[in-house]
Each structure stands twice: as C-alpha cells, then as structure tokens.
C-alpha cells in the first residue's frame, strides 16, 4: 500500500508524452517540485515535467548530474536495458510495437496461426470431456 517507486537521482523512468515518447530516461537531478533534469545515452540532457514520466522499478547508482560517460557506464553496470526487456512491462511494450508494425501478409499469417492453435486446444478439450463423461 505505501509507495515504493520514489523520484530520486538514478530512478529510471519511461517518457509517456512528448517528442521523446517511449524512451527510457534516468532522473539525474530534481529542479523543483514539478520538473526534473533527465538524461539518456542517446539524447541531450534536458528538463522534463514529472507528469511526462512514468517511474519504473529500476534504479541505478549515480551521483547528482554525472557526465555522459559515467552515466553510460553506470547503466551498463546495472544492466538497465536487460532488466527492462525482461520485466513484464517492458515485454508488453515490445509486443505492442511488434503488433503495430505488422503488414497485411503478417496479419494473415497470424490469423492462420491463431486458428491452428485454437483447433489443437479444442481437440484436447474434447478428449478431456470424453474422459470425464465416461
């Protein structure tokens, strides 16, 4: 019930609005009650409103406003990318992106695969029903 993900230096967050939508960033400093200084390996260090950030469970060990090199080294040491792709939130985002990027042929293949899977499931269900009826 109490809060577990706090805004702190080193907290990894997901940008949920704006030009950098969908990027993982690290909070490197807190400017005031509403804004933070955020940084990521592939973007210029900039300020962002907390309302544009969704906090994650991942936290890395850095000092206030580190240089880009130290930030990248700390992110490698904590394996932010790996932890993110293994977490259920990260996996869901990857699946959503894949589904959005399907072309018509891919969707056709998907439909055939779904029908095949449903057929197999129904066969097993029929088998189990026969066993319990007998």
């Amino acid at each position, binding site marked *: *019930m109490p809060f577990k993900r706090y805004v702190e230096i080193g907290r990894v967050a997901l940008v949920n609005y704006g030009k950098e939508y969908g990027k993982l960033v690290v909070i490197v400093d807190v400017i005031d009650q509403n804004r933070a200084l955020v940084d990521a390996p592939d973007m210029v260090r900039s300020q962002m409103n907390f309302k544009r950030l969704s906090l994650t469970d991942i936290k890395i060990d850095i000092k206030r406003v580190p240089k880009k090199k130290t930030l990248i080294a700390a992110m490698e040491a904590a394996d932010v990318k790996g932890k993110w792709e293994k977490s259920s939130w990260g996996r869901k985002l990857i699946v959503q992106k894949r589904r959005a990027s399907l072309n018509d042929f891919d969707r056709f293949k998907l439909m055939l695969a779904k029908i095949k899977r449903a057929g197999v499931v129904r066969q097993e269900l029929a088998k189990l029903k026969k066993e319990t009826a007998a």
Partner: protein
Amino acid sequence: MKTILSSDTMDIPDGVKIKVKAKVIEVEGPRGKLSRNFKHLNLDFQLITDEATGKKKLKIDAWFGSRKTTAAIRTALSHVTNLINGVTKGYRYKMRFVYAHFPINASITNSATAIEIRNFLGEKRVRKVDMLEGVSVIRSEKVKDELVLEGNDIELVSRSAALINQKCHVKNKDIRKFLDGIYVSEKGTIAEEE
C-alpha cells in the same frame, strides 16, 4: 505551498488489536470493539512494526499536502488514541444538577439508556433524553444530584452529555442569574490509573 511529505507515527500498546483497511480503523480491546471511518481525509494509514523495539506503530502520511491536510494528520492520530483509550479504559463523564429553588427530579428508565427530567425550574414539561448507542447513564449513589455517563466511544458519551445539558437550557431569562441546569463536572476514564 505543498509540503512534499509530512508524516507522524504513534505507538500501539499491547493488549489492543488494531486493523487498518481502506481508511477504516477497527480497534478491539478488553472493553469491546470500536471502529472509525476516515474516508473524508486524504491521508495514507499504515501499520508498521518498529525494528528497534518490535512494537507496532500506526503511521500516517500526507503527500503534497496543504497546511490543512498536514494539520489533519495529528487530529486523526488523536482520534485513534481516543479509540484505543475507549476500548481499554472507557470513558466516564460526570454531570451535576444545579438548581436554586426547584429540585431537579431525574429518573433513569429503560435499563440505563434513557433519562427523564422533571420539575426543572418548576416547569410541568417532562424532558426525555435517549442516550446514544453504547452509553449508559446512572444516578450516582453517595453523591447528591449527580449523573454518571459511561461508554466506550468518547464521541457518543460526550454527545449524550451535551444532549442532556441542552435539554435543560433556561429560556427568556437572564442566564447570569438563573444558573439552573445540568452541567458536565468531570471528564474521566472508567478504569482507574494507579
């Protein structure tokens, strides 16, 4: 301005079972059970166990609170303290009859849950006051003209005392001279402190 976090804790004595779920606090102790609903407050209630001493504590947080919500933290703790005291010690309010000429005639009815007041200032009107739930009223033996109200919930006991007091207001007279009435003389607990 909004204060990012303000919080306060209170100890919970042994012998009292406390349950916190969704801003509804239930306290259980030797004298019975009491519960109170704090859903009108924007506060986080949680029970924690203190690492150092191993005792249970109630912690209340206010995130981004104005002055008023921060003030509400301590009042909520005081309400919980009253619940705990009510369930362990109980509350006893004593009231005295004050009259100059016409003796106030009070009779307890309904097995200590209602009181009838006659002859207040010589009036023919009979005043009947029903006590609230869980509150009992008796005329004290040994002390002349005294009522004792007892119960677990301080809100109900004190409100019953107020209802009795308000029934005996003097009308259309100078109240500095006509001092008749039934007044609260003592607010205490039932279990005696050694």
